[in-house]
């Protein structure tokens, strides 16, 4: 990155990666199944934890208003 002499190699839009197009198209048939399962279950766990704390710890400690 010799800053005052920019080189095209630094421009991400112009640098192709070595990912094979066909391979990418192949994996894109399954993606984002795993991501949806992983992220979905994590977020669901968060909300379940929230509801449990709300109902089992917060409410029994006495209401505030």
């Amino acid at each position, binding site marked *: 990155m010799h800053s005052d002499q920019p080189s095209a190699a630094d421009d991400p839009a112009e640098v192709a990666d070595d990912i094979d197009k066909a391979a990418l*198209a192949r994996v*894109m*048939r399954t993606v*984002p199944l795993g991501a*949806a399962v992983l*992220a*979905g279950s994590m*977020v*669901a766990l968060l*909300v379940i934890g*929230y*509801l449990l704390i*709300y109902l089992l710890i*917060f*409410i*029994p*400690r*006495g*209401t*505030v*208003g």
Partner: protein
Amino acid sequence: MTELHPEMHERRILGTELLWAFGVGVLIALTLGMIVFTALTMGINPPSNVERIDPKTLHLSGEFAEHNLGTTVGPDGSTTVRIIATQFMFVPRCIAVPRGRLVTLRLATPDVIHGILITGTNVNTMVVPGYVAQVHTEFTRDGDLLMPCHEYCGTGHSEMWATVQVMTNDQFKPGADGRVSCAQR
């Protein structure tokens, strides 16, 4: 599955993202719905008593003068506790409250910002100079609890706390003037 045109495929990706966003939106609505539901049915709010009071003259007159502090049971049976939070002490330092009855805590400060919580309960409020902080709550278990100052108020902050005695109905007996003090233990 046939190969899609890149732009069609990009739209499918965005469609998937939109589906995810919708699912996430449902979950957020669920968490907010819990808040709205308990606010409507149980009257749960954060303590928000926008009641102005001059911090400079608290000790001269009114309910926060020294000998008006502490627990009072009104003629209608309502329990109100008045507390001063000052550098570096709560007045009074021991607070008697009944179990299983609505209690109103009112706090004010003559100097800087303080805050309180009572361990194991939902009592929590900032005590901001210029305002009366007020918490309505019900204590669900009896015993001695800690009420520390939880906002930094100066070098003596760490030694600033009070004790809260949650009493059963047998122990919580107001005197003729309606005042209740801590039991000596």
